[in-house]
């Protein structure tokens, strides 16, 4: 038949050919969400108390941040002379702009908290046992999330942001050998400026989200590969279908996360400070809240607070799956009762040591006296040094008491975490000239 007739023939058969193509897609028509999930899961994985849904909460926050971030990218301008103006435009000119911005900011803060809680949950249940690779992937994700939070902080280009980033970048100078190079590479110079803004924007909007996407996919795939959530090795257990049980619970958690962050965005304000002024430092210059604990510790000793303490924490986290090789009580919250008692006692010990250390150094006169000590004494005796010492004491004492490495590692970690959280609180309460004042 001629071309015209063939064409008409095909057009007439259009509905049928569409239906046929749809049919031939076959297996690929299956639901993507179901494909991500295993077919059957343990009933225990459905209970809220198993993980408190922290992984899903973090994922939901990440998706919310990605969506709101893309919307903000449509209006934001990453150059010093127009950044603040574009923030004002987003707040006032763009319809729902202020709401989207507040969603993004509050979700960002919430994500740092959620990632930390998720990490602590995995530690507390020793869920890295048998899944060491996923644990280290998780640590990489922690670094990426902190990097995203930090790079995003600068973009508003107000006084708070500008000087917070300058201070936090200066913390890098304390790292031996490589610190100065990292700082200059990050800032595009010694000081925060136009190069820094562009670099931070590229990191925040392209490079780090790309990295996050890759590692999150790997992280989730490893969960499937490792046969689901960590659980006690009970051989026979009732399995339930993932659909609808697990998927429905995930949907509820995700909606709840969006709802709660949305509520915060409606009720609270995320204002803009005065526009960034490179000639006039803010007083006090404070790093973002997730780094201010570090800043507080560094203020006493750059070596101990800026290098040794973070290194201790980092080593503790990285080596945890290698030093804790027990098979019992995996997936269970802090094993046998004695373990809980020991951990509680160590936490209390850590808290008391921290309070004592800070109380000793809090008064300005004591602080000034400390600054006059010989360098070695200054570096050894300060809140960070005392924290490391207390962690070591906890490690050895609990290790000898229990005869196992797991409680010892948990003890060391809990002391370091208590010191970090405490230092964050103290740092947050500091005002002009780095003077401490109670928040009430």
């Amino acid at each position: 038949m001629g071309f015209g007739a063939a064409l008409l023939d095909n057009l007439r058969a259009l509905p049928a050919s569409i239906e046929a193509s749809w049919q031939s897609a076959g297996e690929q028509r299956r639901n993507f969400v179901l494909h991500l999930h295993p077919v059957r899961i343990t009933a225990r994985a459905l209970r809220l108390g198993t993980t408190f849904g922290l992984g899903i909460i973090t994922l939901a926050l990440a998706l919310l941040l990605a969506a709101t971030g893309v919307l903000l990218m449509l209006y934001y301008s990453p150059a010093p002379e127009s950044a603040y103006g574009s923030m004002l435009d987003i707040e006032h000119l763009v319809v729902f702009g202020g709401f989207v911005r507040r969603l993004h900011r509050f979700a960002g803060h919430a994500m740092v908290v959620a990632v930390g809680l998720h990490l602590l949950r995995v530690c507390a249940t020793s869920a890295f046992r048998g899944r060491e690779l996923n644990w280290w992937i998780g640590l990489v994700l922690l670094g990426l999330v902190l990097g995203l939070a930090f790079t995003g902080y600068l973009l508003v280009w107000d006084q708070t942001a500008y000087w917070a980033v300058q201070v936090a970048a200066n913390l890098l100078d304390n790292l031996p050998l490589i610190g100065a190079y990292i700082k200059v590479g990050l800032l595009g110079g010694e000081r925060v400026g136009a190069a820094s803004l562009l670099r931070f924007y590229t990191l925040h909007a392209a490079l780090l989200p790309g990295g996050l996407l890759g590692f999150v996919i790997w992280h989730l795939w490893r969960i499937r590969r490792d046969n689901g959530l960590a659980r006690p090795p009970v051989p026979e257990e009732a399995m339930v279908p993932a659909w609808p049980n697990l998927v429905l619970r995930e949907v509820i958690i995700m909606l709840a996360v969006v709802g709660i962050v949305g509520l915060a965005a409606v009720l609270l304000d995320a204002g803009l400070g005065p526009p960034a002024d490179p000639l006039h430092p803010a007083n006090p210059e404070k790093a973002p809240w997730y780094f201010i604990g570090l800043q507080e510790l560094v203020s006493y000793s750059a070596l101990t607070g800026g290098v040794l303490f973070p290194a201790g924490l980092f080593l503790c986290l990285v080596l945890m799956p290698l030093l804790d090789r027990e098979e019992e009580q995996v997936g269970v919250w802090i094993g046998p009762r004695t373990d809980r008692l020991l951990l509680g006692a160590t936490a209390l010990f850590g808290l008391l040591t921290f309070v004592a250390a800070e109380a000793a150094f809090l008064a300005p006169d004591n602080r000034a006296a400390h600054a006059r000590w010989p360098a070695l004494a200054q570096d050894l005796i300060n809140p960070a040094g005392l924290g490391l010492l207390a962690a070591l004491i906890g490690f050895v004492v609990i290790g000898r008491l229990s005869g196992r490495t797991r409680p010892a590692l948990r003890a060391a970690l809990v002391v370091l975490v208590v010191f970090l959280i405490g230092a964050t609180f103290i740092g947050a309460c500091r005002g002009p000239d780095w003077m401490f004042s109670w928040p009430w």
Partner: protein
Amino acid sequence: MALKVDTNRRLQLGLLLSVLLVAVVMAVVVVQELRAPWRRLQAQYLALGVDEAFTGIREINTPHGRVDRCATCHLGSLAATAPVTVKLEPHPPFARGHEPERLGCTVCHGGTGRALNPDVAHALPGTGDRDPLLEPPYIEASCSQCHVPGAVAGSERVARGAELYLSLGCAMCHPLAPGGRGGWDFGPDLRSLARQSPTQLRTSLFEPTADYPRSTMPSYETSLDRDQTALTDLLAFVQALSLTPLEQPADARVTAPCVDCHSGSRGLAGGRLEHRCTYIKVRPQLVCAGCHDPEVPAGRFCPLIIEHREACRACHWQSRTPGAGAALAGSSGEPGEQP
């Protein structure tokens, strides 16, 4: 596939509550947007039955790189005869040549021009400070961004404030030389501070230790509290100091050095000399020698210049160089003026 939903009661309740929460939040956001202050004001304005029919955001892109959206709420301010929904006084006569349609509003009135929320728009950027030059006595300070104080009609208050600055001895500790600091400078260069509101300045004058416990500045309460005019003049001048110069003044009196001291018909030196320098006025014996002694570089005798760190340069701008401290003070609305 069969869609069999779990009939667990708690789960159903959880789903319902979370969906409800998200729906409520979205509804609140939409309502907040529809009831934005500027939308309500415009609706009221249109209800007055005005010929001018418009809706939406009204922007002025000023030659100084700012964006002023004030006319979105301050309706009628751009039309000479239309009624206004927000009570405004008409611009004074010397505002001719300063049309808001061209220059915008914030260049004279301060505030955050890009904002549409009154709490943000009527305040210094990033602060809750709501009296940045909005009050008429202090609006004159804005004139100094382009004009020498006192050189144009309407800026007499700032000129009087400059004289007070010298006679009260402010320049002894707060230097005004282009280089900024040096020698006797105990206090910060007032040109390099961020924009201060009259309230903050009043506190600094009457209670210097209120914000800075270690300040050695004396209190001016006794000399200024009784004389409200003098206080207002001085505050206007100090506010003017913190504003960034926007343009080189076109006043002839500043373009030639000699006419710093000489005034006369249109800046031509000659005829009757009138020294506007306060110091010379009370020491007539120094009148001629100071400038006409060939062995003394002109002006070097002047204790004002020596002790007050060339305070005259506060107004006479050809020596005010950008980046010498004056340039990057918090600008009165937008950060666009960074060099």
